[in-house]
């Protein structure tokens, strides 16, 4: 039984990998070589969009669990929906200039992440036990609002890239490719941290639960190396590892769907199991971040001094 599942899982992974490859090739054909910066910016819009989608679904489910007790709990839904919309717009937009509305939405999304973190910290600290494992596991998730912060940041970043008219792109005066690599690396680490916390809560009862705490940190390390300007020799490895991480995001959602079915009543009892089982929309954040990492690599390749 288990091995049969593993097999189908494996086949699906291979299939998804092939598709990703096609997608990437297709994208690069789509983006003419002469506008590498815009291409990177559009990729970032895409990455931000995937993250927003994950946030939209995740905060939707989690705040539904919290019965939208506080009206502010609608904010991340609205913001991630907007961010998703402008990301779609940005991904399709090959004009070289930043877009005022996109820019504003992204900035607001990032701000939502910061404020949300504040709310979640407050929620945890007012429970008995304060920063105890119990509250880290079951209180408002401290790391969750970071995802919308990241999606906003990636978006803001993409708009700055479009603004940039220099030979080698900079953002806020810093070399764009490297900063972006560092930012996504940090994002991957944080997200892996959150997966680690929740998988610890699940006592790593399934060996696959180790994947998100091993693969993304390695990707983060490789991105860090890229950011630090180590020569491009390991870049193929970084690229492939990021693709693996992107795949992991999809595969994770699949595993989580299986996890939901493993709860009492399975999918028929979805009103409970979707909430109490593993969070379906969480793993795709890895995909979003990995795509942003790939964009950073692209920038570094096109402009060695980026």
């Amino acid at each position, binding site marked *: 039984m288990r091995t049969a599942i593993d097999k189908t899982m494996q086949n699906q992974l291979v299939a998804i990998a092939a598709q990703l490859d096609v997608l990437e090739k297709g994208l690069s054909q789509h983006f003419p070589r002469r506008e590498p910066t815009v291409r990177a910016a559009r990729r970032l819009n895409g990455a931000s969009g995937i993250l927003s989608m994950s946030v939209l679904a995740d905060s939707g489910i989690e705040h539904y669990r919290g019965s939208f007790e506080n009206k502010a709990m609608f904010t991340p839904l609205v913001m991630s929906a907007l961010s998703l919309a402008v990301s779609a717009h940005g991904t399709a937009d090959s004009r070289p200039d930043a877009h005022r509305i996109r820019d504003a939405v992204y900035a607001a999304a990032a701000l939502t992440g910061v404020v949300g973190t504040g709310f979640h910290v407050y929620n945890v600290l007012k429970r008995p036990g304060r920063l105890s*494992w*119990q509250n880290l*596991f*079951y209180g408002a998730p401290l790391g969750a609002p970071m995802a919308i912060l990241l999606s906003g940041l990636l978006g803001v970043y993409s708009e700055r890239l479009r603004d940039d008219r220099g030979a080698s792109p900079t953002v806020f005066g810093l070399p764009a490719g490297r900063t972006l690599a560092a930012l996504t690396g940090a994002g991957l680490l944080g997200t892996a941290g959150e997966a680690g916390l929740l998988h610890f809560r699940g*006592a790593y009862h399934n060996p696959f639960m180790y994947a998100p705490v091993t693969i993304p940190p390695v990707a983060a390390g490789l991105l860090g190396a890229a950011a630090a300007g180590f020569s491009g020799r390991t870049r193929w490895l970084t690229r492939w590892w990021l693709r693996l991480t992107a795949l992991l995001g999809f595969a994770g959602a699949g595993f989580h769907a299986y*996890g939901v079915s493993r709860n009492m009543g399975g999918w028929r009892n979805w009103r*409970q199991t979707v909430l109490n089982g593993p969070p379906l929309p969480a793993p795709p954040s890895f995909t979003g971040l990995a795509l942003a990492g790939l964009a950073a690599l692209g920038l570094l390749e096109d402009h060695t001094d980026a």
Partner: protein
Amino acid sequence: MSDDPLLSPRAKAGRAPDVFAPGGWIPMHAYREDEAVDFVIVGTGAGGGTLACKLAEAGFSVVAMDAGPYFRPLEDFASDESEQTKLYWTDDRIVDGENPLQMGSNNSGKAVGGSTVHFAMVSLRFRPEWFRSRTLLGYGADWPLDWREMWRYYAKVEQALKIAGPVTYPWGPPRPRYPYRAHEMNAAALALARGCEAMGIGWTETPLATLSAPRGRAHPCVYRGFCTTGCSTNAKQSALVTWIPRAIAAGAEIRDLAMVGRVEVNDAGRATGVHYHREGGWRFQKARNVVVAGYAIETPRLLLNSATSRFPDGLANSSGLVGKNLMAQSNQAVWGISKDEIRSYKGPPSLAITEHWNYDDNKDFFGGYSYMSQGPLPQLWANTQMSARGLWGDSLMAEMERYNHVVGLKIVGEMLPQESNRVTLADAKDQYGLPIARITYSWSENDRALIDHSLRFMARALEAIDAREIWTQDDDTCHLNGTARMGGDPRTSVVDADCRSWDIRNLWICDGSVFPTVGGVNPSLTIQAIACRTGDRIKALAALGDL
């Protein structure tokens, strides 16, 4: 043939019910009655079920019998208090003394898996000093066991049951991390935590034998709150879904609806097997060793009912202690009304605990207690209002409307052993024609002092979280232990440290009866640890040719 597990046995003809699949079966070894098996075990609960697994895995031939049915929880358990009384030992018993015990649903199970099928899953270790309470703390009796050895066996049982507990446990010597993480606390548990913080004492999530993540074919807990009426999801790690399937896989045979009426002893003073009632008639199973594991009432009753001319006072009773030193645990509670909706019916009843008063020796009485959050279901709650508070009529109805706002704390308190608290045989007979048990129980001064202390303290803890209309329930007890205590001296104990009776060397007693003292924590983890140790000891003794 009926498939009602209460009417006809399921485990027979080479197969037993698969507890993880509705209507499912697993293959099971079948032993002949006229060929002696290595071990016949009477009772398949925390003690007997665990030992059956250990002995079968050690390669012994094992037949384990239980008077109760063999359930498949997924298909047999309803979400209903009345229906689920089918899990309890409801054969007739008589209670007397100054503080007669409540039996039945309050403490005794009758099913394959024993009382663990409906227990509340609280899985605690003894405080190390309790194993030498006479020497170190000045009361009760010393155990012939060393706490360090018990610590190792506790860890094994915690692993075997995938206990879900806190990442670090605040009391006692270090213990390995619990295999599964603690469950989410419900409002009742958070209330306990707030109260403890207000009183300046520690609290933690209760280590529970119910899954917080999937395990094999068992689902994680769904927080339905029917735990003490049977877990229909298999999240609860009862003997029925843990030790028993393992025992069967290792070659043991389980016989359900098999009531043992008498242990047979030959002229040489050795046990030769058991007489048991199954499918309408009395039968006999030959065995080289007999293990009695029927819990602290049925174990002494069976030993007393098995008296012969050679053992006129019952088996294993040269000390005269069989049936004596029965110990319940005090189970008093403080209740109040919260302005918040607590809805304590959600989730396992006791998700948070404090063991503060088990480890603080600054008290004017012996022994300790823990207290836990509570989640009574409606029938139990209504009856508590009626019996402990005397409410009926309009006042009962009005009180019941506030069910969702009730918040309560309840102790598991140590009661001291007294020889006058005991199990004897009554004149009345049960449906098999066997004399029923008479259970005599009175609290000691020390028991009362402990109860008073706990009620005062818990009332303050509830006041501290602004609960209103606080009242105390002072009549309840839980758990049963003693009645065949272990010890180092045949004159003052019934069995030795290996649960082997002093008088009849191939007769063993392996359940809650062997406790010399009870401590202030729920007993079943200790019962299972002792059973694991006994299994290892029997294996070692067999290797030495010493059985």
